[in-house]
């Protein structure tokens, strides 16, 4: 019989298809793992509801669990229980290392004034002299910013 620890370990190898350096466990989207005999029940929350990575993540999680010899049951939880605050410290570091500025805490719900402020750090040089270029970016979870110091555009993970 598989253990919860084995399942978590297996899920830690399932990458976010759009930001492959980070896993579903780093992202904090796996809410719960329960073992019931041969069945492994996983509760999973989408980051953004329209995220196309949702289905591939779900399939890959099921596949990994099946490889452990268990029967996967992936339940998608459609509520507000996921926040970017759930991205693990390791996950935030991995994001930063590949040029994504990690999200700010949820406690400051985003406003235009805040997004246009210099409270966002460039993931390349660490400068706070950065400007909002576009609230929206290549995927729903990202905004575009520009570092006035190192002259580098970068992607900012949106706070959810």
């Amino acid at each position, binding site marked *: 019989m598989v253990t919860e620890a084995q399942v978590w370990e297996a899920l830690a190898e399932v990458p976010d298809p759009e930001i492959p350096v980070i896993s579903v466990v780093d992202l904090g989207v796996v809410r719960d793992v329960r073992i019931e005999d041969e069945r492994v029940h996983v509760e999973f929350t989408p980051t953004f509801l329209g995220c196309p990575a949702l289905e591939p993540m779900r399939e890959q999680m099921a596949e990994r669990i099946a490889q452990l010899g268990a029967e996967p049951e992936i339940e998608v939880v459609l509520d507000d229980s996921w926040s970017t605050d759930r991205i693990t410290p390791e996950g935030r570091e991995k994001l930063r290392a590949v040029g994504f500025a990690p999200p700010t805490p949820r406690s400051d719900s985003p406003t235009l004034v805040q997004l246009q402020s210099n409270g966002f750090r460039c993931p390349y040089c660490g400068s706070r002299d950065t400007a909002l*270029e576009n609230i929206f970016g290549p995927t729903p979870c990202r905004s575009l910013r520009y570092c006035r110091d190192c002259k580098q555009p970068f992607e900012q993970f949106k706070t959810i």
Partner: protein
Amino acid sequence: MQERAQLLLEIADDELILGWRDSEWTGIAPFLEEDVAFSSIAQNEIGHARALYELAARDLGTTADELAFDRRPEEYRCCELVELRLPEWERTIARHVLYERADAERLERLKASDDAEVAGLAAKIDREEIYHRLHAEMWHERLKDEPRYVEALEELRPLIDRRDGHTPDLAALWEEMTSVRRSQPVGTVW
């Protein structure tokens, strides 16, 4: 359950049809930032529609895809505001502002619902909509003294409450939106 499904369908239809309309700016928006913005907003709205259809589908014993694409145009419950094809930028922005403001009020009501599933999903959707609202209000600030924009706001405002009938634009969009699905035999697995 039927009553809840009808309410969910109304919102889901708004989001699906508006998502399609917003996606019409992909590739041709007046500048690149807006091309990205409207494409992303469209993707979010259609994602919201999917989650709402899934909840309604459970109540009605059907699937999200069937609700989204297998109904006749006259069965949709969306408001006339989202149906219009608006190739003018100022009218698109006026619709965006009117819709986001009304949607914010609707989401506040749903978040206070006794129905935990509805309230939970509304809270999730609202987190994403914050960014749409910021974008809409940014544009409103920029255009609020432009006569063409002010006129568009006045013209479109009444349409947000109109749900009894449909504009001819919906039928045209429906043809396009469902054409691939209708080209395949009923029951095709996608």
